[in-house]
């Protein structure tokens, strides 16, 4: 039996498989298909300070091996989240990585503060900070597109979250140099990084010759973007290995559908893997991927998951 446990900052998780934020709601729906406490961690839909209606519809467009979404961060607000969703997750024994978002750095900090003070905070193994969302003050530019805005959010959130609870900055791939953003976040106090959020994309309704999505542009996800996720994880891990930034754990996400896909991210440097869009195709995907990944490592004769994290580095050019 392979030891599948993995370490994320101060926390050790039973296994590296997680849901991806926004692709699993807050647990009750998927719990009908599998026991969500079997996951290394359950990542919740990004929650903001107030309830949000999200955008109009259509909110999705199907694309080859992927989809576009423009949900607009619909959610109940942090108060309802800590009153209903988090206690439910705690009640079924789930390990939780709440994802938080905000339109300003102070909104992020406020959400983190309410979260920390929740009675159910004990089930929280870390906080994912979704900085791939629009900064209201900066013409709606995504925080994660700018190292300074990113750092500010992370620093304020870090102050609110207890030291022994790691925080993860979730990065956008839509930048010229993702290692620069990654380094800024770690410097500001991020204990780890989640990569990647969706790519900015768009589709045209060719019947009506107008943008397909109510929100015009949307986030591209699914297997088609996996090569971008693998590359991002690889680049940031390489920057760590080369001493260009401190080494922190990476959570890989983007286009994972099978155990082999997950293994790509792990070998590139991810200490944990999230499954997003694939769950829409197969609701049991997160636990199926865990099973498949475990099987693959067993076949290959590894004793622990840890050995495989980043294993592909230094292997290029071998024959």
């Amino acid at each position, binding site marked *: 039996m392979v030891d599948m446990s993995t370490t994320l900052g101060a926390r050790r998780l039973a296994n590296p498989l997680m849901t991806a934020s926004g692709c699993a709601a807050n647990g009750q729906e998927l719990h*009908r298909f599998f026991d969500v406490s079997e996951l290394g961690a359950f990542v919740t839909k990004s929650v903001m300070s107030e309830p949000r209606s999200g955008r109009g519809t259509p909110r999705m467009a199907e694309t080859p091996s992927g989809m576009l979404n423009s949900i607009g961060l619909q959610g109940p607000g942090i108060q309802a989240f800590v009153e209903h969703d988090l206690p439910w997750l705690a009640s079924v024994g789930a390990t939780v990585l709440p994802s938080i978002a905000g339109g300003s750095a102070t909104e992020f900090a406020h959400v983190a503060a309410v979260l920390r003070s929740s009675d159910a905070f004990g089930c929280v193994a870390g906080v994912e900070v979704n900085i791939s969302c629009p900064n209201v003050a900066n013409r709606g530019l995504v925080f994660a597109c700018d190292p300074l805005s990113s750092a500010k959010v992370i620093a304020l959130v870090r102050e609110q979250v207890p030291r022994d609870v790691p925080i993860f900055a979730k990065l956008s791939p839509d930048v010229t140099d993702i290692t620069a953003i990654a380094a800024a976040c770690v410097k500001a106090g991020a204990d780890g990084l989640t990569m990647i959020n969706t790519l900015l994309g768009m589709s045209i309704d060719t019947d009506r010759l107008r943008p397909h999505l109510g929100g015009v542009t949307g986030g591209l996800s699914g297997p088609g973007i996996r090569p971008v996720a693998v590359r991002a994880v690889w680049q940031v891990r390489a920057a760590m290995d080369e001493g260009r930034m401190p080494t922190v754990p990476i959570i890989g996400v983007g286009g994972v559908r099978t155990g082999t896909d997950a293994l790509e991210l792990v070998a590139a440097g991810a200490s944990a893997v999230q499954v997003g869009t694939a769950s829409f195709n197969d609701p049991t995907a997160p636990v199926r991927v865990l099973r498949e990944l475990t099987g693959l490592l067993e076949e290959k004769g590894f004793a622990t998951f840890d050995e495989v994290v980043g294993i592909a580095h230094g292997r290029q050019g071998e024959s």
Partner: protein
Amino acid sequence: MNDLPTQPVSAARRARVVQEQAELVATTRVGAYQHLTLASPGVAGLARPGQFVALAVGDESSGTLLRRSFSIHKVTPGPSSNGAGGTVEIVVSAVGAGTRWITSRQVHDRIDVVGPVGRAFPLPTAPVPCVLVGGGYGSAPLFWLAGELRERGCTVDIVLGAASEDRLFGVLEARRSCDGVTVTTDDGSAGVKGWVSDVLPDVIDRRGAGVVYACGPMGMLRAVSDVAAAHGAVAQVAVEEAMACGIGICMTCVMPVVGSDGLTRMVRSCVEGPVFRGDRVRWDAVTPTGAVVPPDAVGAPRAVTR
């Protein structure tokens, strides 16, 4: 906060759902549609009229990732005479790549099915007269519903409408399972030339119907809701929003619906619908191409840009 007329959502969320590799046991052409029978005992054992199934398209390496949703036309629970498990029937209109793939499956092929999903048609507790309205393949789930209603002592009238005769579904079955049948077509190729909403007032009034159940295109559902309200009946309409997951985890399928607290929320039509009370849907915010967020909805953006 998720309260809805007849069934609290927490119940819907807890409602059992299965995923199974269903064998296609029969597939026949019916007018413009394909009628598929799937051996899907898990779904068959749980489903109620108005619920739907979500089918995966293609194999593991398919570039088409999202499931396609179809109303359940009929279920035959339990082991059938030939020892096979229960079956689930659906009626599919091939409109795009996904439905073309599904309708071109052959007997013995397997299709990955998730179901039953969604909130079923709520049944009246007293034997009131009911009218069912189906637009195109929207009639598919209504015959099963008609049977259940008549079992409860309700009189059932049905109105079937479509663009043309070949797009009507189940006229014969309607005559068997309902007390009265009215047919309309846009082009007059069968029944009354016109829309279901043209004949509906009469049908409601004639029986003094208390509930109108409808399934079909959004425009029709709105008209049915208006007519029902004007004629003193409660409308229960099954909507069709674009769905990515069908099981409540993606938030793509939302509709603006008024809760029992009087507040409008963008609710998921896959788990909190597809059946909504017609007078609870904010039709003013539903356009032919999608729903906008009403400015008074809970959590609506301060400055609405759209």
